[in-house]
């Protein structure tokens, strides 16, 4: 039940940002010197920012930037990480040592520290921010998949399969993957929230989306200077960020709970 509610809201959210072009009342990039920092009104439901741009339209388009980048990043990291993790956990030996050493190396860089340095050197841009976060993100999936694989590797049903002479690939996909998928996939879902926090954090620091691109983190950062006179330029993108992250985390939790039943 919870899943359906969460999924329905996520669907609504996705529809809103996909159809941003249709819903948005104004051009999110059109500046207007005569309409600077307008309080919310009928024409500009969330008011206007320091350059007279419609905040509501920018929030919609900004959602597109943030969510698309997040999805892309999580999906790729999940696929690569889980595959490597299962291989390492199941086969062990030199293969595991090589990959886990690589994972250790990537993991030994605290993710955001690396991301900030890499994004800083790459000179900003959403692609740079994604690369910066991505080079360490797969590791978490690999580690999780590996540890779960190890914890079930000596279970009787796996042993039985091994003794029955079943192939490694067969066992990994038939027995291990289904048994570790729930926690790893749930982790992927919760990673959506975390990744979004990371990406908008980088943008907030000026290391992600480049102005004038609409992006929640950078909108909050821009509006911060005028928070006293035009709080809506911060509060609405902030609300959108919180709502979106909460929603995805809620979906993750709902799935987790469903899986536990």
């Amino acid at each position: 039940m919870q899943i359906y509610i969460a999924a329905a809201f996520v669907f609504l959210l996705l529809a809103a940002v996909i159809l941003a072009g249709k819903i948005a009342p104004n051009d999110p990039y059109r500046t207007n010197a005569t309409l600077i920092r307008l309080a919310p009104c009928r024409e500009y439901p969330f008011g206007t920012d320091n350059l007279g741009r419609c905040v509501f339209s920018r929030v919609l388009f900004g959602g597109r930037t943030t969510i698309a980048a997040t999805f892309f990043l999580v999906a790729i990291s999940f696929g690569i990480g889980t595959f490597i993790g299962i291989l390492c956990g199941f086969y062990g030996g030199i293969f595991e040592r090589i990959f886990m050493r690589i994972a250790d190396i990537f993991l030994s860089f605290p993710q955001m520290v690396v991301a900030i340095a890499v994004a800083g050197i790459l000179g900003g841009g959403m692609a740079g921010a994604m690369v910066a976060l991505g080079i360490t993100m797969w590791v978490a999936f690999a580690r999780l998949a590996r540890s779960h694989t190890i914890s079930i590797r000596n279970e009787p049903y796996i042993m039985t399969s091994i003794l029955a002479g079943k192939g490694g690939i067969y066992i990994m996909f038939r027995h291990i993957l289904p048994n570790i998928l729930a926690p790893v996939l749930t982790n992927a879902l919760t990673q959506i929230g975390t990744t979004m926090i990371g990406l908008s954090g980088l943008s907030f620091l000026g290391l992600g989306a480049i102005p004038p691109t609409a992006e929640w983190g950078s909108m909050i950062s821009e509006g911060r200077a005028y928070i006293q006179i035009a709080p809506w330029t911060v509060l609405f993108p902030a609300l959108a960020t919180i709502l979106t992250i909460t929603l995805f985390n809620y979906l993750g939790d709902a799935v987790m709970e469903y899986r536990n039943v």
Partner: protein
Amino acid sequence: MKQPGDTKFLITTVFKKIAETVLLLIILSLLVFALMYIAPGDPAEKRLTSQGTAITKEVLEAERARLGLMRPFLVRYGEWLFGIIRGDFGISFKDDMPVAPKLAAGLHKTLILSTASLILSLLVSYPLAIWSAFRKGRVSDHIVRVLSFIGNSMPNFLISVLLMYVLCIHFRLFPVIADGSPTSLILPVLSLSIPMSGRFIRQMRSEFIDQLNEDYVTGMRMRGVKERYVAVNIIRNSLGHILTIVGLQVGTLMGGSVVIETIFRWPGLGKLVMDSINSRDYPVIMGFVIIMGTIYIVLNQLTDVSYHVLDPRV
């Protein structure tokens, strides 16, 4: 089968871990150096630009020669690495001053902020997580879960902006800019602690619940063992995992401190590195990654070793 208190085994593990740590640190430094090496632009040029000198061909050549940029990669790497081991992090592009003292001052401030935040988060989350796990499904558990859920869903830059808006501008309770006084530490620490506590509670609670679902807990309860002793056992058995959770969260804390220090102008490593990114002062950025990376590596290797000590089955 490994025996308990097998000190020989433990010593071997520790030595392995030390060797591993050294190797990891070398690779870390190599990657950091390589990253700067392939970074767009030429250090001599960057240096001159960041100092505002007009670039002519002669000036550039002279600068290159002075910086030794003509020498091979490994020679320069070795020189840089041994410099760092001696505590010399190079010369700032911006003002030609040694980087090390700036990094040291920043690290000191960052440690104050991070340690305070970590301690506060642990003080709040550890007892709440245990309490919540034992009351799984009850109203109190739901309240803790909702709170930790919200905390976990809030980026720290958002919390800090909102806290600033409400507490500094509306109620004028705190100074907007952190000046190093204890009061000015409150908001940055809160901004870091709220999301971290949320994450801690969630992860620890699920660890405790996993422990409570173990066969031995059912066994204890069926023998009528008091919950007090059940708690002792799950706390004992979860220690390894909890330490790992904390160790990994330190990485998030480091990233968060960059954001928070920038917002509150707290003169730590994070603010320093953001200023340096803006002025492309590469030696500072390199020093920052090296310092944070080293702390993180050493800390997590330590939690790894303690995991072996705490759970002899591993």
